[in-house]
């Protein structure tokens, strides 16, 4: 019983700070009191009418979708390489693919910022997408690899022995079989990019402020209650992605 009560309290500690944002975002006051003395939609109106927030949101969505597509393709390739090919140093290859999960994000951030400067892609959507994809590929790789492990390889052999080309086999047999892990991987990549801030602090510039950058800058200067509305939107989106994601794959996203 003692165990159950302590777990309940710890779970409350985990959930309360997230749930508390929702009533606060509907507050009619400028200062945060809980529970709010009155309710209104003014912060959502602010979010909708203020260009800095809406532009940040649109940019974030564009970058997150591109990141999800790019990193899903590359992550699937890498996981297929591990699964289908025999080559020396496979372990090293796998470590190189997942290492961005443990490399301190700040180091990855300044390294990309430094190199991207030579190609003049800092402060562009391309630069943001490329840098976010580096952080998302490991997640896709791990998720899809887990999906491939649960697949019966004989089905592919059967397809090939019936005359299918390797590429045809992939699209007609393998991909449908691992579909749910591919969708989860893509969604994880999407959220990773949507929430990325450390690398983005360097790569983004005055023309490319993603939503997290607008939040970060606002939090450091003054506390604009609009952040509570933005937070609620993000909480709802993330939770929705989870509820619709096929199968809760245990992928650990690492590094912030």
């Amino acid at each position: 019983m003692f165990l159950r009560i302590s777990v309940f309290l710890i779970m409350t500690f985990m959930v309360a700070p997230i749930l508390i944002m929702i009533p606060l975002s509907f507050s009619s006051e400028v200062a945060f009191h809980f529970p709010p003395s009155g309710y209104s939609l003014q912060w959502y109106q602010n979010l909708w009418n203020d260009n800095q927030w809406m532009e940040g949101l649109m940019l974030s969505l564009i970058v997150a979708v591109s990141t999800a597509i790019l990193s899903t393709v590359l992550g699937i390739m890498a996981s297929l390489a591990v699964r289908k090919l025999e080559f020396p140093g496979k372990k090293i290859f796998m470590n190189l693919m997942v290492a961005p999960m443990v490399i301190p994000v700040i180091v990855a951030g300044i390294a990309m910022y430094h190199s991207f400067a030579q190609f003049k892609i800092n402060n562009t959507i391309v630069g943001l997408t490329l840098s976010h994809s580096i952080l998302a590929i490991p997640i896709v790789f791990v998720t899809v690899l887990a999906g491939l492990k649960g697949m019966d390889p004989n089905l592919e052999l059967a397809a090939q022995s019936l005359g299918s080309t390797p590429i045809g086999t992939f699209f007609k047999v393998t991909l449908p079989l691992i579909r749910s892990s591919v969708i989860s991987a893509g969604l994880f990549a999407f959220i990773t990019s949507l929430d990325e801030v450390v690398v983005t602090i360097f790569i983004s510039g005055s023309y490319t402020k993603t939503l997290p950058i607008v939040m970060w800058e606002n939090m450091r200067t003054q506390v604009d209650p609009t952040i509570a509305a933005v937070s609620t939107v993000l909480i709802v989106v993330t939770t929705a992605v989870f509820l619709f994601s096929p199968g809760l794959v245990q992928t650990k996203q690492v590094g912030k």
Partner: protein
Amino acid sequence: MEKTEIRTFPTISQRHVSVRIPGLKWLLLVIPLIYTFLLLYFPIVNVLKLSFYDQTGFTLHYLQEILTDMLYLKVLWITVKTAFMVTVVTLVLSYPIAYLLVIMESAKMKKLILGIVMVTLWISLLVRTFSWSVILQDHGIINDYLMKLNIIHEPLKLLYNNTGVITGMTHILLPYMVLSLYSVMERIDLRLIQAAQGMGARPWRSFVQIFFPLSLPGVMSGSLIVFVLGLGYFITPALLGGQDNMMISKLIQQNIQNTLNWNLASALSIVLLATTFLLLGFAYWISRFSPILKGDN
């Protein structure tokens, strides 16, 4: 006759395919590899070079400065101290959750708890940090309630100090610890505990002598991942901590964006990266040589 025909059929078609597109499959390996090297590994090498080379050529000046100047040593110390404290707190808070998950019978509750852990893991770091800043402020939720209940008369200082940083980081890193612990505990054979209790061991004793030692690989891997991640934290300490809570990541960022001292930032990055990989290497080494910590129960 028939048998040989069946057996040779796949080989023929495979050869046929490999003739049509020789070596194409190696692109699966080469493209992701080149991509990550171009975008991450070469850039990291290039930036780390700056800690040994400046306009004057080869120098160890920057590394020496970091490792001798009290100002930098203090930041390194705070970084290690904060990561360590966060690791201890997350471990203490996560162990009961993971333990309950393992011994619990209701599959529905199990799914609920794991679901909550997974969702909190993915909820925006900025959102969670922001929420803590609202809760811990001088006139935030905690202080408001404590003052209303007349427990305190002056607001407690919960923000812009160690308390703020550790609370925020613990909240964010907790799911990693729970999942690491759970993945190991899940494989512990609970019949061992039943057997011990059947032979007269009290529940507490069977936990301490059997369950806990078997869960050590999870304690090890969870603590390590939380510590390593904690070392590199940037956003949460910057928003919830004060001037005395500056961690190495923040110092790196300041050197790049404020003082434009790339050489020093690079030297700090080497220290951070080297510590991270030494710890990971150490964990790998231990897991190879120590049977208890090996992780395959």
